[in-house]
């Protein structure tokens, strides 16, 4: 049973993603922003998530910044960046941190599930 951590500042979108992921048989942990993501990943979340789904733009700390911090702390869990725009990924990520993939909003769930399956069965 794979565990997925999802971070988004919209509760509605968290609910949507949680529902779809649980229907697919994933265990879901949620976070409201990048600060919570870093806390969860550095704390003793047991078992640790297998994949992180981070929204690119969140208040307090963006998904990109959280990703950067996790990598600096030596946490190498695969990360999928969820974003409304190709542009903000271009601007924020890709340049200095390795990302396993990008998912654009509105979310194409079939594509998302394929990406997660790909990352967790490696």
């Amino acid at each position, binding site marked *: 049973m794979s565990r997925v951590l999802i971070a988004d500042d919209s509760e509605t*979108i968290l609910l949507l993603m949680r529902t*779809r992921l649980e229907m697919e048989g994933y265990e879901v942990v949620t976070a409201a922003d990048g600060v919570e993501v870093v806390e969860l990943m550095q704390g003793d979340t047991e078992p640790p998530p297998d994949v992180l789904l981070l929204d690119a733009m969140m208040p307090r700390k963006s998904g990109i910044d959280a990703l950067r911090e996790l990598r600096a702390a030596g946490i190498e869990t695969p990360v999928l960046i969820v974003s*409304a725009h190709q542009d*903000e990924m*271009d601007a924020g990520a890709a340049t200095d941190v390795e990302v396993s993939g990008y998912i654009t909003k509105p979310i*194409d769930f*079939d594509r998302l599930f394929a990406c997660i399956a790909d990352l967790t069965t490696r």
Partner: protein
Amino acid sequence: MLTGLAVVGVARFLQQRQDFENATARSYQVEIAARNRLAAGTRPGAARTAIVSQQHERQSLRNDIDGETRDTALLVGAGLIAGLTGAALLFSGLISSMRRPLEELVEASGRLAGGDLETRVKIGGLSETATLGAAFNEMAAELQRRAGERDQLETMKDEFVLTASHELRSPLTSVQGFAELLMLERDKLDSKQADTVEIILDNTRHLVRLLNDLLDLARSDAGRLTIKPALTGVAPLVEDAVRTMRSQTEAADQTLRSEIEGELPPINVDRDRIRQVLVNLLTNAHEYSPEGATIEVTAVHRNTAIEIAVSDDGPGMAEDQLEHIFERFTRGDAGLTQHVGGTGLGLAISKSLVELHGGRIGADSAPGHGSTFRILLPAAQATAPDQPQRVEA
């Protein structure tokens, strides 16, 4: 001063000429008087002497005036030459002091016309050229200011489109996501409810496409439609697009299948962008074809290119319509587009994207015989696979 000399010379010449005329006239009067006396027989000897002496007098006056004239002419000539030389020197000084600033103005105008709005000229020299230079600099500064304002407006417009599309995308994600969730439990809905949810979904997808197309169009107009090519396998790319379309084609009982030639070389493309083009072509095929239609994607090797084709057995298009389909805001026949949620921008954007990759896009169709859209993308350069360096021990 030298021209003054010429003037003085000319004046002197005129005075001497006058003196000469007066003296000659007086000499003739004396001679005429002597000849009258000779004719009257009064002291003929003295009269003859007077006549001869007056003739000599005039001869000497003529000699004098010739000499004077020659001197004056020399003087005038010298004066004129000196004057002209002075004028020439003065002018060449004037011209050279104007030429540099003028040349600089011409050069600066060239740079300005070439788009260097920061170009300015040095102000100096004669007051005329200085004024000209100042006017030029003022004009250049104004142009620069306006260009700055225009750029700022352009940036604001881009930011607005970006922000608007971003803000709209979050609620749309929820609407589409929850409508899809309802559709997953279609069995629990009665047929009227299921139809309702389907309408919500169709319209949400339409809104999303509008947003994406508007965003791409704004980028394309600003010359900011960019691609990030990477080596990409053809099969995963096509399958990705097909997977995205699967639920929609299944809902319309359409058959969607793909056939990809084995061992195709990879292509150097922006994966997301080419996927976008394929999804666009597939969406068109899906929307313009009736229920139960067959949509096929094929990928084959053509010389140094890979051809990906999307064909359907839908209503097809007449030639006059086919000519314009890659233009903006061109859509299929109104009779057919009642159920079609296109923006009229998809193919125009697809064409831009394919061309950004150095590829081509085209379409074949005939009424009643379906349509085939083909994109040709250059195959990645056949680089020799990394061979381990053989090191001689």
